């Protein structure tokens, strides 16, 4: 069986880095929601999604991102994304997500963008 989804989480003071491994679709989105919810509930509103191990993301996954961004920003934070694969980037592009999220090449760039 193909890896469905596990989410690794690394936490700093205010920042959290989520690394979804597998795919996010209607089936696995709850796992992802749970991981994202957990860091938000701990007051970490600076979130980086490192997408390097993300095989694909269906609309449910996109919805999970879109559906929390306002809450995150109202709390003075942001959700930024890095290391998108070509195919995931194409999906982001297709629904216009790059207008809504800041996307970075490397995790380092995404993290340091919060320092600025």
């Amino acid at each position, binding site marked *: 069986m193909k890896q469905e989804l596990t989410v690794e989480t690394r936490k700093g003071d205010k920042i959290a880095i989520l690394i979804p491994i597998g795919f996010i679709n209607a089936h696995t989105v709850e796992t992802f929601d749970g991981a994202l919810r957990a860091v938000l509930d701990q007051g970490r509103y600076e979130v980086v999604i490192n997408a390097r191990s993300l095989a694909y993301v*269906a*609309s449910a996954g996109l919805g999970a991102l*879109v559906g*929390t961004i306002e809450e995150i920003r109202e709390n003075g934070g942001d959700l930024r994304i890095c290391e998108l694969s070509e*195919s995931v980037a*194409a999906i982001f592009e*297709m*629904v216009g997500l790059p207008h809504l999220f800041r996307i970075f090449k490397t995790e380092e760039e995404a993290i340091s963008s919060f320092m600025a």
Partner: protein
Amino acid sequence: MKPSASVLLHLAVPSDSKYLSVVHERVREVAESNRFGALESEQWALAVEECAANSIEHAYAGRGDGEVDITLALEGDYLCAEICDEGQAFESKPLPPPADLKELARMGAKGGLGLTLVQKIADSVVRERLGRKNICRLVKLLPENPMTDKEKLASAEFQLRTLVDLGREFSTNFDPEKVASIALASLMGHLTILRAAFLTATPGGRLRVLASRGVKSMDSIEGLPWASLEGEGTSTETPDAPLRALRLDFIFRFTSGEEKGAILFSPRLSGRGFGEGEKNLIHAVGRQALAALTGSRAQELRIEKARADSELQVAREIQKRLLPAELPAIPGFDVAASSEACFSVGGDLFDVIPLDDSRFAIVLADVSGKGTPASLIMAFAHAAFRCLANRLPPVDLLARISELVRNANKAHRYLTGFYAELDPSTRKMIYVNAGHLPPAIIRGDETIELSTGGSVLGLLPGTTFEQGEVTLQPGDVLAIYSDGVSEAQSTNEDEFGSEGVVACVRALRAKPAAEILRLLEQSLFEFAAGRAFADDRTTLILKAL
């Protein structure tokens, strides 16, 4: 599905979201084996998965005892997918407009993106209720060009192998008619052409038919003036009646040193014209054959004189002719290049290759070592650049050539190279420097070195590259050269140096490219003051007008 459709996949899964990944994977595989590239296949799989997810979430409202039926079929030039369920009817209103992201974000909504995605991916989306069934039907036009990148690469490598095989054949076969006939056969096979002829010019400027295939008799054109072969790659400008009568409408002319040759083709079976890459192949094969013919003639003479170095001389002549005698004109630029081997044969190469999108590839490379072994790698690399330019983005092209060279020689010979693609309309040049001496752009008093790239070609497995980008300004002079130029030594072993090259070109920058080249070579000779050059010297000057 229409009766004429050919079904590629039929899949029935329980209405449980845990099966969505199975749907995704199977659909992706089917798309990938039916002309879709990796990216498009992934997107198509996503679209079908979204529809199946809709059936599970909405039609069955999460009940796990239903079934979702998925059928993929080819209908003519279209890939179709039908996703059926027997759940609650869809609302009968038309498809909603694409989701507004900002609105969704504001509302914290998590749905609404699925259908947007599906509509963007598929060319047409139709939902209908048929009896107790919901049917969602997606249609997407198959890619126009049936070749995937992988196939394109395979076809480029096939071309490359043809050139290498022909080269080998030509170097052992000295019968001009056979050489010409082999060249024709392999081109006809490549391009699906039924009738063809290979002509050369006699010293008196007349047509001589060396070989023909599929043509009953070529007698009617033997001895016509060479000038009868006007125009290239055109079907309308064949001026002479006997030529017209043969219906060999496509004429490709080429030269090798002083020799002139032409290959004539009937229209292709496919009815298509010739692409830039195909024209390049025809010219490369033609030139190679012509070079072998003249080389073999030279060899016949030399055997009579019992000269021991004849083979090397033949190799030198063949090699000289591999490099373009005349560079294509680049609009808004002035370009010139030359290459001098220090032994009979050398390991340097240069080329300017027109690309399909009216850009130009510019290549200069230097094989480690010199002499015959280096020259073999040089010929191989030259063919590889010719075949793969146009097919791969620069960084992938160099990675590929690195692999090809690495696999082609066990002697750990490698090459340094500079590869650029220039867009004359914007003057933008992307480039990759594979361990080569950085070419210099001379802009007034400023010098810009082009060093972005990576390691040398053919030495290490899995070498990867980065590309650089630069926009040339009017008056800029780009000098690309091999180390034989900058490392030329004077009698007291001083080197001419990169600074020497740059200073020399800067002083000459107002002159035409060919003149810069000539005067640079003259300066080198003056600097060397009679000391023999120790390495091959190749320079390419590109001047933005």
